[in-house]
């Protein structure tokens, strides 16, 4: 797995992803893998070698030396979360998934299969692995946790994962009456923003702040009611500035999706609204910058969570001081996408050509591709259709406005003759892609299809999900125009077939096709860049906390679907209709899960804003019924009162 190294440079966080084994050179030299331009840094200061699950740092006789967490080293194991000091810079790293995660994986410091080796490395380094033997049992006595001297806090509610799933849960808890002092959130974003990871994925997949995202007006992570939606807010703002065109937003919501193009909000507006809500509910005060390591039941009907605070967030503290426990009665797991992989043939190419940057996945940072295209022109091969492919094609169209010498090959396995059928309806097909406004049919969120899935058996569920999901894009006029223009002017060509091999020759990637009746003998497609938009294979087993939890408590998993969309292929953690993890009940203590971790379960759209709000609503409703401290039943009057407070921007109380 690649690692991502980060450090501070004049107040900004710099990041560099290193893929392969290395050795990677760090130093002042411009030819290095990580360039640190400072007189106290030697030209080649040190080398980093990624060996399986461990990372080794080797000082290269530097003038000023290299230190790990303050102690000078020549050769040493460098663990995640530890600060590697080079001159004035303090570097740290995190494991990132193959391609999908351009940056840290929330839980993914080490892949689960490698965990024993990582522990050995710890022992070899002269330290005791944390949390050690205490967590060998299914139930840990609270007295032993207290005796360890590492119990940092006891809280009522704990959200694991600092992303949008936790944000929605905490937002519901606060509106239902829970004081912020009894809620904690464990997340790794140093700036504590809930959308940090989402924002990185958007940036990598070429969605700037002013672009519209594939979400609906009433999918409002900042507002549990969905009113006012983003469309009416945008309309009011525009009209206040004297732009009557803002009224178009209301007409869109009025007619969508049958009569008008569906309304979608701007990315920047969503982030801004979440910042406001975070301030209103006191999100930052609940947020603990830390990486969760493992979860166990306690003997007093609660849960204990072992976590590690990164050295940057606890200046001067030793590694052992940064390893702590937290105890909570009600826990929600929302850790987002676990590790994901490229398709096998792309993976193979990446492994045999680790230095070639010409093959990229659409979710990893690849701005260089477009910059190079704009400067020199060239041919890009896009694999796969779907929403990100549409956006990448748009980005290439934008590059073509600067350099007309860019052409595009669109490669798919087979043409699409007709859309999927379900009940009395059929999905629309246009320009060889199935179209629907969102990643699931709209009524999956709260209508007839939600009900249908909830009532279905596990076998029926995976069948229904592969019909409703799959690869689709949105029916956007600008995208349709771009495709039409590309076909007309000849800079866009479509090919079909399965890929037999990918090779690298004379600075170009040669993709050999076969397996299609038209290209029996094979056809070679040459391109300067290959952008993979086929989606990814996510594996829950590679998120260590979850893998450990599933193993220790024999938790059930959902059946993986057979469809083509990445969300369908993931076998999530089995949850009941209220998103509770059944095997985790511990007396009064309960665990819920939300987001993509629950994929292929009773709810389809788990990895969407509205889906996360739904999961939060279901679990917090259940907390209300359990008479959990501070949680009201949230009837109409309380709902109205809280809504007024939201409008006035006042704290939920």
């Amino acid at each position, binding site marked *: 797995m690649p690692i991502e190294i980060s450090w501070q440079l004049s107040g900004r966080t710099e990041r560099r992803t290193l893929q392969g084994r290395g050795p990677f050179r760090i130093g002042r030299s411009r030819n290095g893998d990580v360039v640190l331009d400072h007189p106290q840094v030697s030209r080649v200061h040190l080398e980093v070698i990624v060996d399986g699950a461990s990372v080794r740092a080797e000082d290269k006789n530097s003038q000023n030396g290299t230190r790990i967490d303050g102690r000078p080293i020549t050769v040493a194991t460098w663990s995640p979360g530890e600060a590697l000091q080079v001159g004035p810079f303090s570097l740290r790293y995190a494991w990132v998934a193959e391609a999908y995660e351009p940056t840290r994986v929330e839980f993914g410091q080490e892949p689960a299969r490698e965990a024993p080796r990582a522990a050995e490395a710890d022992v070899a380094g002269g330290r005791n692995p944390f949390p050690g033997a205490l967590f060998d049992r299914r139930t840990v006595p609270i007295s032993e946790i207290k005796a360890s001297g590492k119990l940092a806090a006891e809280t009522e509610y704990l959200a694991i994962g600092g992303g949008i799933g936790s944000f929605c849960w905490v937002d519901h808890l606060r509106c239902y009456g829970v004081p912020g002092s009894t809620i904690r959130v464990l997340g790794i974003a140093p700036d504590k923003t809930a959308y940090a990871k989402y924002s990185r994925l958007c940036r990598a997949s070429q969605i700037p702040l002013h672009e519209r995202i594939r979400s609906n007006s009433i999918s409002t992570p900042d507002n549990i009611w969905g009113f006012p939606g983003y469309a009416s807010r945008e309309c009011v703002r525009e009209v206040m500035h004297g732009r009557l065109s803002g009224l178009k937003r209301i007409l869109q919501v009025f*007619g969508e999706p049958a009569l008008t193009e569906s309304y979608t909000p701007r990315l920047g507006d969503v982030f801004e609204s979440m910042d406001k809500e975070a301030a209103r509910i006191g999100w930052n005060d609940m947020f603990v910058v830390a990486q969760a390591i493992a979860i166990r039941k306690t003997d007093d009907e609660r849960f204990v969570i072992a976590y590690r605070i990164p050295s940057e967030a606890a200046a001067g503290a030793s590694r052992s001081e940064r390893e702590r426990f937290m105890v909570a009665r009600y826990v929600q797991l929302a850790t987002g996408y676990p590790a994901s992989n490229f398709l096998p043939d792309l993976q193979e190419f990446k492994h045999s050509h680790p230095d070639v940057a010409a093959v990229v996945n659409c979710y990893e940072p690849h701005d260089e591709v477009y910059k190079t295209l704009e400067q020199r022109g060239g041919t890009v091969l896009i694999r796969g259709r779907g929403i990100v492919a549409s956006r990448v094609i748009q980005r290439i169209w934008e590059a073509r406005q600067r350099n007309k010498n860019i052409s595009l090959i669109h490669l798919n396995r087979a043409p699409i003759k007709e859309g999927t059928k*379900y009940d*009395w309806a059929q999905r629309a097909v246009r320009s060889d892609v199935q179209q629907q406004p969102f990643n699931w049919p709209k009524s999956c969120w709260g209508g007839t299809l939600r009900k249908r899935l909830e009532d279905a058996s596990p076998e029926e569920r995976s069948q229904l999900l592969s019909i409703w999901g799959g690869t689709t894009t949105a029916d956007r006029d600008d995208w349709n125009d771009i495709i039409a223009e590309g076909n007309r002017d000849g800079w866009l060509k479509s090919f079909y077939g399965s890929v037999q091999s990918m090779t690298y020759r004379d600075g170009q990637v040669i993709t050999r096709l076969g397996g299609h009746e038209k290209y029996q003998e094979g056809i070679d497609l040459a391109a300067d860049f290959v952008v993979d938009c086929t989606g990814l294979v996510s594996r829950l087993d590679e998120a260590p906390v979850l893998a450990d939890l599933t193993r220790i408590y024999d938790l059930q998993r959902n059946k993986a679907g057979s469809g083509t969309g990445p969300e369908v292929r993931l076998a999530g953690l089995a949850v009941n209709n209220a998103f509770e993890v059944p095997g985790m009940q511990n007396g009064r203590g309960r665990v819920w899960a939300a987001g993509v971790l629950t994929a292929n379960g009773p709810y389809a759209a788990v990895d969407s804003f509205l889906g996360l709000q739904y999961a939060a609503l279901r679990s917090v409703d259940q907390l209300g019924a359990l008479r959990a401290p501070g949680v009201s039943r949230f009837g109409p009057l309380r709902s109205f009162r809280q809504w007024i407070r939201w409008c006035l921007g006042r704290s939920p109380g």
Partner: protein
Amino acid sequence: MTPTLLGRWHTRLILFLFIGLPITFLYAWYLSAWGLSEVYTVAWPFDQVWFRLPPIELSIFQDPFKFLLALLVLGLVLDVAYIQIQRFHWEQDWPFAYQFFFSWVEFFIVFYVMDFGFLDFMFPDGRIPFSTAVCHFSWVFTFSFIGVLALLQIFLVRWRFKGGELGRFPLR
């Protein structure tokens, strides 16, 4: 909107109870007390009429309620057809535009059924004139539409996820 059949019925009933009935009450009162009375039409609402309640024409007072009831019954029946139409949509949804359009379709059906005399058993003292019916329905429709767009979501936080059904979710 993405309603279920039960959700359509629940929503229709709650709108009838909390928006249709109060508005019809006010409108019927206005109609029977001032609307058709020459004496008070001119004066209202500027003089002392405000302070002493005018006599209410009971038969006129009742008419808007009967009309609203006829609309409710037709709506509950048509909801079964609407839910079938939804199945032709891939999204299985019901755009606001449809809600708008079919609300008025329902109004015209009820009005002409009454106007042709099929509802004379309900309106023995005469049918409602078109202008009065339109005026009455415009008020009811406007507030019901606002109800669907905003009010229900604000008061009933689960409504939008339950396809318009009322009440809480089951616990598991």
